[in-house]
């Protein structure tokens, strides 16, 4: 294991060395920092050129300049490293990079997480309903998403997602035909998802369509879109639903101890809603994280207290419920400042540019909401792209697993369908996915070039594009050093994860 790791790291270092060299040479020929000075009409043109040549060491051939740059990078090993400075902004590359990485992480984290959860869920559902109308629609949709150019989608999202939704908020009522249309579509999706014989499909369609239509009508009639809130009643109803859902997925409703511990957690969450309202005004990011950790701990204790032969199941179910309920309470508090924020944004809350409203001096909750309204559009754009990939992967991988002999064995033993799917099939289907995820994260960290450019986020992609446009070689190389190392590391992590999860794979090469 250790030799494997050492060997992989060594070869990764060599690969990284070669690719930085190639990239450095390419960049130094592609980029001409003197370009604009050549056409300038300033009197001291010669002097300026001379100064810049000296600054960037342009008289030395690129190959030698690479070794100079490499010396700077390796210097970090003993503490006097340097990645050079940007000649345009006169700022150190490290400084630029650390700012950009933070922005990109904020942008990408939510999108990657959501894409994984949604993509895997939909892919699994689609595989379980193989060759059904639902499966075909999902397949078609993922092909469509594969074929959509990012920049096109992003501009469309700006037009409809932001400008359209903001216009809608001016008079937030949904017309009768809109209501019927949305209700019918929702009903169709649910009936295709639940499946079964024709009669069951029709009842699902009626119930799901009716519930959706009524909810939307209620929201539209009471002006919910202008003053959204959940309130304790809605949190209680949703919390109980979450408890039942989490139990049925994690242990099955037959396991009464797990169900009761989940329900207790939900009840505790609702009971704490009122006292928490007095704590929330003093919120900071750490306080919220602490409360979240505390809720998980409480859930674990509750699950443990219910006891029984397999306590871990109750703990797991309670923890899942706790995540859901605390998210609800959090969302409720964020929604409470919607009115204030919307007034501040002059009734156009969904933002199209940048990562935050400049000069917004709100409390923690207004700032959080401000971040979310800025995140919505770019996250959706990124989500649409990676969602398709995850759906295809998880569908294919689950189908592959379902064809295995041990699934037949599990069924033959008389296990319930839930146990077969969730415990035997789903876990094994996740193994190949676990190897895709690190690669995908590494790619998305550097690949959000277009999304960042369109939505005006000053992240890694934007740093690269502006530096390339502005013929600024040092930030480009800094960007590449980070993304290249990430890609190489992600490859190694993927191999290790695979070896850790799948006992058939051994790392001794």
């Amino acid at each position, binding site marked *: 294991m250790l030799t494997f790791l050492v060997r992989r790291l060594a*070869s990764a270092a060599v690969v990284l060395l070669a690719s930085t060299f190639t990239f450095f040479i*390419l960049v130094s020929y592609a980029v001409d920092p003197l370009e604009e000075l050549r056409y300038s009409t300033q009197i001291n043109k010669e002097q300026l050129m001379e100064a810049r040549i000296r600054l960037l060491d342009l008289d030395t051939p690129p190959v030698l300049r690479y070794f100079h740059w490499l010396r700077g990078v390796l210097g970090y090993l003993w503490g006097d490293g340097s990645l050079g400075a940007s000649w345009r902004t006169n700022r150190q590359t490290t400084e630029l990079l650390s700012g950009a990485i933070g922005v990109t992480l904020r942008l990408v984290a939510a999108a990657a997480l959501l894409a994984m959860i949604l993509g895997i869920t939909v892919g699994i559902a689609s595989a379980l309903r193989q060759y059904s109308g639902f499966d075909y629609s999902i397949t078609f949709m993922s092909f469509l998403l594969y074929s959509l*150019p990012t920049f096109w989608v992003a501009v469309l999202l700006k037009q409809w997602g932001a400008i359209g939704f903001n216009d809608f908020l001016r008079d937030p009522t949904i017309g009768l035909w809109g209501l019927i249309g949305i209700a019918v579509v929702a009903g169709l999706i649910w009936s295709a998802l639940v499946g079964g014989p024709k009669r069951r499909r029709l009842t699902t369609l009626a119930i799901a369509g009716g519930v959706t239509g009524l909810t939307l009508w209620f929201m539209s009639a009471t002006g919910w879109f202008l003053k959204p809130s959940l309130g304790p009643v809605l949190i209680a109803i949703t919390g109980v639903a979450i408890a039942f859902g989490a139990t049925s997925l994690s242990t099955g409703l037959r396991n009464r101890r797990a169900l009761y511990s989940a329900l207790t957690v939900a009840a505790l969450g609702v009971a704490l809603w009122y006292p928490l309202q007095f704590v929330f005004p003093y919120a900071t990011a750490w306080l919220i994280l602490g409360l979240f950790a505390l809720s998980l701990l409480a859930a674990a204790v509750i699950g443990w207290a219910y006891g029984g032969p397999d306590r871990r199941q109750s703990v797991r179910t309670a923890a899942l419920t706790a995540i859901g309920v605390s998210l609800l309470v959090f969302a409720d508090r964020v929604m409470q400042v919607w009115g204030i924020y919307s007034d501040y944004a002059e009734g156009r809350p969904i933002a199209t540019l940048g990562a935050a409203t400049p000069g917004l001096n709100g409390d923690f909750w207004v700032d959080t909401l401000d971040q979310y309204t800025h995140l919505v559009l770019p996250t959706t754009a990124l989500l649409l792209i990676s969602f398709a990939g995850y759906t295809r992967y998880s569908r294919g991988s689950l189908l592959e697993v379902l064809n295995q002999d041990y699934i037949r064995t599990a069924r033959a033993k008389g296990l319930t369908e839930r146990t077969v799917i969730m415990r035997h099939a789903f876990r094994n289907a996740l193994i190949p996915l676990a190897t895709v995820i690190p690669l995908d994260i590494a790619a998305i960290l550097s690949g959000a070039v277009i999304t960042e450019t369109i939505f005006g986020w000053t992240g890694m992609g934007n740093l690269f594009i502006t530096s*390339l446009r502005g013929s600024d070689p040092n930030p480009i190389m800094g960007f590449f050093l980070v993304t290249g190392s990430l890609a190489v590391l992600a490859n190694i992590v993927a191999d290790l994860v695979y070896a850790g999860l799948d006992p058939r794979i051994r790392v001794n090469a």
Partner: protein
Amino acid sequence: MTLQPTPLTPPTEDTTESLENAIELKEVEGLSQGQIVFRRFVRHRGAMIAALVLLLVILLATTSIGVGPFHGWWQWDHIRKHDIAIPGGRPTLVISLTHGIQLGDFPFGQDTIGRDIFARVMRGTQRSLTVMLIIGALATTIGIMIGAASGFFRGRIDTLLMRFTDMVITIPIIVIGAVLGKLIGGGNAILLGVALGLVTWTTMARLVRGDFLSLREREFVDAARVAGASNSRIMFKHMLPNAIGVIIVNTTLLMASAILLETALSYLGFGVKPPDVSLGQLINEYQSAFATRPWLFWWPGLFIVLIALCVNFIGDGLRDAFDPRQQRRIPNQRKTRQR
């Protein structure tokens, strides 16, 4: 897994059985691998529709404004400016039940300085398709060469070539594309395609290598070697045809991502540049006009999606057609569905 000569009709239970009997009774000619694949592909409805649509798009793009010295049947070109026909440059295309389809002078509309959008979109489609084809051909060739050499010779050559592949993979494709696009100065679609083809072959190389690693252990390779075939003959005459399924499927998928890559680069300004036109560059040029003249934005985007979607579907159909497990899976599907 053995390939059974099951009939290639839709698998309804009774017809399958009667056909099977009929085939057993009749003296039938065996089908070659190519014929089997072709028949399966034709049966894939989505892929056939996609192939048809793609063919129509190619025909429309090439015949309408013509290629090189040949003039097409369309009256305008992508550079000339005209007087605005309808105020605002609205499209003259009318599709209604009473009047049928009327093209008018500027079916896709005009831009702010009066250029014909139809001709521009057609020109852009030609350019984007050219880049896509060049990338596909070049990346496939390089990928096959490197993958075949790596998988066939193994050992030191394999290590060297695969580390080289790793090195190319480290660089995000849009990043290297942008740098290359800037390096070659842009504007030249053919050069752009060549440059991008030089960096997009990695997946192909890895897949071909994997296939060759397992193929070289097979008996027919030993047989060929005993018969005195040279290395290159074994590689390209004996082994390559056995890996053709993987290669064709991956080529189509590669081309689907190639058109998206080219349009994205042109959108960012590192690909095809004005006065020449590509679909991505058109969207870049017109994106600010979306609120006032949406047709400037709709048409090029529509053609990108159409082409990429068709190529993706063809790739899917080819994958199903080449997949030997398909035959087992199709009869199974009815049983698993009923549960």
